[in-house]
């Protein structure tokens, strides 16, 4: 229990985020995973995305999906 690495509150939060997203959208967590993957890969074809920090949200009213896709290149350009 003590050496599992990730703290249980982070595991809970990650699971909840996926669960709530799929509940709100009315689709399965698997489908959601595929959708996320597709969005990231299509954007990545044009510009490189910092995949570690990608975040998806769905508001309930009005129902809107928001994808937060931080860009790698822009960050680098900024530091040049």
């Amino acid at each position, binding site marked *: 229990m003590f050496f599992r690495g990730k*703290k*249980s*509150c*982070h595991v*809970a*939060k990650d*699971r*909840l*985020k996926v*669960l*709530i997203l799929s*509940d*709100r959208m009315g689709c399965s967590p698997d489908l959601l995973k595929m959708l996320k993957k597709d969005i990231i890969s299509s954007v990545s074809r044009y510009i490189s995305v910092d995949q570690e920090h990608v975040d998806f*949200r769905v*508001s*309930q*009213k009005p129902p809107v999906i928001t994808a937060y896709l931080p860009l790698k290149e822009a960050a680098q350009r900024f530091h040049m």
Partner: protein
Amino acid sequence: MSEVIVITSGKGGVGKTTTAANLGAGLAMADKKTVMVDTDIGLRNLDVVIGLENRIVYNLVDVIEGNCRLKQALIRDKRYTNLFLLPAAQTRDKSSVEPEQMVKLCDDLRKEFDYVLLDCPAGIEQGFKNAIAGADRALVVTTPEVSAIRDADRIIGLLEANEMTRVHIIINRIRPDMVKNGDMMSVEDVEEILAIPMIGVVPDDEDIVISTNRGETVAGQDSLSGRAFQNISRRLMGEEVPYLDIQGKKRFWNRLFRK
């Protein structure tokens, strides 16, 4: 300027009834004439939590069906003279009441009281629909657990779909020691996930169990949970109250949980 507030959660056992009882006591202590309505028809509990179970003669369904006058069904609290309970019927079921009848009841109660607190049953069926029908605002009680938060999100969606615009969350049974160790989601985590403004945090507290055993409320007592509930009552009345520093009570908490 009276207000009808529904206390709901989706999931059962997260503390709706305890919250209703303690907010009722908190508002009554602030000289607000308050009525707590148990809308959990068939599974009434608010009466026993506040120790009024032996005084019930008439109930909510009797009022709605016209078997008695509203005032005959209201039970005055033992401690606070401006706190009243309208108990649920125990031998009926949720379908004995329609949302329109609840709206009418809430409007009748508005004339008499400053605050009407509706203790909502668990679930999202008829009982929930009845409870939210006449309310101006909603308090969604959750605990920092995945199941409770998931259900709270579902409830928030349903409230929004029913044009309820004033929705706040109460995070109940938080354990600062576990949050500190990374084994319980923090207040910030829950707020981030639900994306709804919070109106209060109630620490997990042995005093709640002890008070409920006795049929008393913790609001007004010198315990962390008692102060937390009293603060929420004040925020309901529009006061700006700083949040309790539950982490600051580290020694107190360590003493409680060191076994």
